[in-house]
């Protein structure tokens, strides 16, 4: 019980930590009025919004009214609806045999009935989510350059990092809106199809999943922003971001498999060898964001999933009777903790790169 509560506090701390990271520039731009007091004319009343907020608000409004937002939302909603419709059909057939299982509703998001070819909601998200991030970031900075608005923007009384922070926050917000809308649509279809309402815990699990999804897509937003700083042309930036996404999503599992075989050969096919190989593969696969996201998604949405660790899994197999068949919310959080930290680290790292390269760049092209 103690370890569980520790894990929860830790989650809270990280979420707060992430927010702090974004708020920092605000504190930066709130300080200047003290300096500006010497300036005789200060049109800024106390408590005016910081630069990054103004930029984020404008960028967010741009995003949600853009055609790309509309198209992406449409595609994702169609995919989600198809996936959920198929899952709901399967679950209905399944329902009588699993009555009482609390995770039935969440099954909508990850359950793939046998014999259907429609992928699940979470599969679609993991696959298409990066496109969302790239779409909202690839022309973030170079777009301002080519429109000639960047010099005008940075000559306003804001900090330079307000520009990139504001754009990142706006992108995250747009992504969050899309995910919340999709989950709401999917949930509604599910309620109609299955005739069951989600419980509180299921709603919380979904909310946590949205946070995970935003962090995951935020990684690709940060990568796209980095590209938009480095490359002058929006087209180049988009292509490079997409290439990075393809490499990490499609080829990373293959490369990880090869690398694991080199590091921990499984020639003898003995159990320790297999376990060692599997452990190495899993450790290496932490570099693949889609792997991290898929795993954390499964653990969050499927309470019956107890561990990703092979050794622990084998142990659990022996002690099955000692454990409940499903995990509670905090126990699930404990399971996804490493994946969550990994995702946050990757996203923060990518954003830090974009931030630093933007700050080091000359205003003039």
């Amino acid at each position, binding site marked *: 019980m103690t370890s569980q509560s520790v894990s929860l506090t830790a989650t809270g701390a990280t979420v707060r930590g992430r927010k702090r990271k974004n708020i920092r520039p605000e504190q930066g731009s709130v300080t200047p009025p003290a300096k500006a007091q*010497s*300036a005789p004319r200060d*049109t*800024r009343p106390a408590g005016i919004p910081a630069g990054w907020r103004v930029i984020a608000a404008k960028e967010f409004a*741009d995003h949600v009214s853009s055609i790309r937002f509309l198209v992406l939302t449409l595609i994702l909603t169609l995919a989600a609806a198809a996936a959920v419709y198929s899952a709901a059909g399967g679950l209905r057939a399944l329902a009588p045999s699993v009555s009482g299982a609390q995770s039935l509703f969440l099954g909508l998001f990850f359950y793939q009935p046998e014999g259907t070819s429609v992928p699940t909601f979470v599969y679609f998200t993991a696959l298409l989510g990066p496109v969302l991030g790239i779409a909202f970031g690839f022309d973030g900075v170079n777009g301002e350059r080519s429109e*000639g608005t960047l*010099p005008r923007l940075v*000559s306003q009384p804001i900090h330079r990092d307000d520009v990139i922070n504001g754009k990142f926050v706006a992108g995250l917000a747009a992504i969050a809106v899309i995910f919340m809308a999709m989950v709401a649509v999917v949930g509604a279809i599910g309620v109609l199809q299955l005739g069951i309402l989600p419980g509180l815990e299921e709603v919380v699990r979904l909310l946590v999943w949205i946070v995970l999804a935003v962090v995951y897509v935020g990684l690709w937003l940060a990568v796209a922003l980095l590209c938009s700083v480095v490359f002058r042309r929006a087209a180049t930036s988009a292509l490079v971001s997409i290439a990075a996404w393809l490499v990490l999503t499609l080829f990373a599992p293959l490369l990880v498999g090869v690398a694991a075989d080199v590091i921990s050969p499984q020639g003898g096919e003995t159990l320790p060898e297999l376990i060692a190989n599997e452990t190495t593969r899993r450790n290496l696969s932490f570099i693949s964001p889609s792997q991290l996201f898929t795993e954390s998604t499964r653990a969050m949405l499927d309470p019956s999933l107890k561990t990703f660790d092979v050794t622990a899994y084998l142990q659990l197999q022996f002690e099955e009777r000692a454990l409940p068949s499903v995990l509670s919310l905090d126990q699930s959080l404990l399971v996804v903790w490493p994946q969550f930290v990994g995702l946050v680290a990757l996203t923060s790292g990518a954003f830090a790169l974009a931030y630093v390269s933007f700050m080091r760049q000359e205003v003039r092209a």
Partner: protein
Amino acid sequence: MAVAEPVGPTATGGAPAIKTRALTKRYGEFTAVDKLDLSVRHGEVFGLLGPNGAGKTTTILMLLGLSEPTSGSARVLDLDPARNPIAVKRRVGYLPDAVGFYGGMTGRQNLRYTARLNGIAKKEAEDHIDELLERVGLTNAANSKVETYSRGMKQRLGLADVMVKRPSIVILDEPTTAIDPAGVEDVLALIRELARGGAAVLLASHLLHQVQQICDEVGIFVSGKLIASGAMDKLSSTLGTGSIEIEVAAPPPAENVRAAASKVSGVTSVEKDPRDPKMWVVRAKRDVRTDLARALVEAGHPPYHLRRRGDELDEIYRRYFADYAAEAAEAAEGAA
């Protein structure tokens, strides 16, 4: 008629609005700005004139704290822009070279965004924006998307954008480039009005002829160095040869025209214009147009064309900007 911009107390003070001392910027081996000493007073239009690549924009970026000087110092409204960029940018309006706006937003929305970035309260901003749009003649286009604007309209919107924050200093980078002559006149009149309101205006341009008419003082800036500065008429003594050219056309016989013109005191030479056989080019030590006209009328050759051809600026232009002038002419032809 001019709507005076409210100006801060420092505007009336004696201290210069902008002052730089040995301001230098190097990029590796290349020196973009070389020990620049500049001083711009409130209510004055200072023309920083030089060919493209002279270091004008680099200087401006240093004044705004957007680029760090390698050595030397700059004071803007008695603040150090490198150390206190926010306070400087709050009170300095900057119109960048080839200014851009968000094409998907209307002119009014673009100005609103600037107002928000400056932390101006909504209500105050709305009234001010209406007034500014009126002043730059964009009231009718205010609610059209900027992507439908002409180059000249964008430039005028740029001036309105600069004024949104009610600046004490206005820095304009090539405000007349790439707009048609009527647009140039509009823009210049607006700039003049800004200075009349008490703002200090620093105007960087490579188009001497366009901007010199509104500058109180000019600095000739070539290859990162300020080679001369001062009021327009004083520049001739430092840079010019002291000779002016007058082109004149009068009815023939040609030799009589030449003889009459040569007799006017102060005239040093009278020659046929190699490019236009009907035109005479009279060189003189001072502006002899009145005397010349009178002499020609008395000689029975009333001139039907009499024009002072440029002035000392032309001299400067030829000496320092000639290469760029040829380039500009080519570019203009290409555009036409």
